């Protein structure tokens, strides 16, 4: 059916480079930036750039945002907005036509160690509200904000894994009270998940040890998510908000190599291999 609306509005996430300013003067910042760009010209070409204002001193000169924006465009960058900083700074930036973006978490450090950057690929974030900069969880994200056993109603369950996205790999046993959340990707645990521990992923959950704790796959609503366990003995399994507790499971399935998946509103347990 053809729609009369010539556009559709969608909320989505983008990763953007933040230029964390330590000085607000274009004649200080721009030459330094130019030198960096000359070292690897393709690196930032035509990228959208967000100005980070947190490190700007309050007593310093008022930054010349208009001058900075113009200079950045001259360097083939696209200044889109600012993040952080005081209200006065943000107002001055808004007057120069820069959007105010809510605070994101840092996930990309050009000069940081390569391993840390590799650990944090861009998350898919199926149905998250608009946020300028998205953070991937730390390698073992125990105090991660609210991975919910009850899944959020996903607007559209896009496939959670984008090409190039890697799974979160857990090598240590997950003990009682521990919680791991792989936001926007799969989690692979090559050790045991003990009773009282939770292993959660927006994608699939793989446990190549004994699964004794709780396993939650498709935490953001992805119904195609699956749970794989080499030794299946869980307290609870959940996919996209549908769950079974231990007492609801067929005792014959306990201790098996098992695949848990959803077929419609029904949870299927199938032997693996």
């Amino acid at each position, binding site marked *: 059916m053809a729609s009369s609306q010539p556009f559709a509005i969608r909320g989505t996430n983008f990763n953007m480079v933040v230029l964390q300013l330590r000085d607000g003067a274009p004649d200080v910042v721009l030459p330094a930036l130019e030198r960096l760009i000359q070292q690897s010209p393709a690196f930032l070409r035509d990228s959208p750039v967000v100005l980070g204002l947190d490190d700007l001193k309050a007593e310093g000169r008022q930054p010349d945002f208009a001058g900075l924006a113009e200079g950045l465009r001259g360097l083939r960058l696209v200044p889109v907005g600012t993040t952080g900083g005081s209200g006065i700074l943000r107002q001055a930036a808004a007057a120069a036509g820069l959007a105010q973006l809510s605070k994101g978490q840092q996930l990309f450090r050009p000069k940081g160690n390569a391993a840390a950057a590799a650990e944090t690929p861009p998350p898919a974030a199926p149905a998250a509200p608009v946020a300028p900069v998205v953070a991937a969880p730390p390698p073992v994200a125990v105090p991660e904000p609210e991975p919910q056993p009850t899944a959020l109603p996903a607007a559209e369950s896009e496939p959670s894994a984008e090409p190039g996205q890697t799974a979160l790999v857990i090598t240590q046993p997950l003990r009682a*009270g*521990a919680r791991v959340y792989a936001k926007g990707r799969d989690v692979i645990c090559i050790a045991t998940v003990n009773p*009282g521990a939770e292993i959660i992923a927006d994608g699939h959950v793989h446990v190549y040890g004994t699964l004794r704790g709780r396993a939650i796959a498709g935490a953001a609503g992805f119904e195609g998510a699956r749970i794989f366990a080499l030794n299946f003995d869980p307290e609870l399994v959940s996919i996209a908000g549908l769950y079974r*507790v231990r*007492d609801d499971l067929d005792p014959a399935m306990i201790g098996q190599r098992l695949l848990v998946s959803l077929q419609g509103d029904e949870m299927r347990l199938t032997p693996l291999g």
Partner: protein
Amino acid sequence: MSEVVVVTSGKGGVGKTTTSAALATGLAMRGHKTVVVDFDVGLRNLDLIMGCERRVVFDIINVIQGEANLKQALIRDKRVENLWILPASQTRDKDALTREGVEAILNELRETFDYIVCDSPAGIERGAHLALYFADRAIVVTNPEVSSVRDSDRILGVLASRSKRAEDGLDPVKEHLLLTRYDAARVERGEMLKVEDVQDILAIPLLGIVPESSSVLQASNQGVPVILEDASTAGRAYADAVGRFLGEDIPHRFLSPEKKGLFSRLFRGAA
């Protein structure tokens, strides 16, 4: 009229969870609609002792944070009618408990239940304080040893000064002493404090004396509240305590060592 009962102690390992499970089960068996709430967030074990750990989906923190409603989190006991369990979370810490959240949950529970038994964590930090703050009655669980009595004394001080009843100027929280792991033989040998010694210091009414018993450990490992073990001295002691809690006049038992029969006397050396 519903009552919030907190089971507390200064020291860990004295039998609070065993007592909470036994008391709640005992009250429910006598026809009172009862819920037992685990406040020991981060170290939940009430569900283990109640034998319902495999049916936990949502917990008290999910309810406080609005991820589940109370009805979803309450687990109905399979053995005893009128008994429900509200489990704690193991993956959050005690800071997830908020005073407003606890108050809202207790108010909602008051609408349905006659007794709300709160299994408090040990000590006097946040989780324990929140558990006792809204209490109408408190059962202070103490072992017959000096450090346990000292810590219970400290808790009684907190109850008297920092409970909501104290802050609102209402009647004070009604206090009961429950002496657990009592070994009359060792008391006779002077290795343990006597009931009188404990009462001397704490000076609150004695709800019961629970003798040291191997059945407590056995029952807890099997997920059965010990009060359901009719053959166990500890189970019978808890049944008496529940009766006294409800105002019945029941004489105290298990104060003296069990009389040994002729055979056990004869064969003592061999046993």
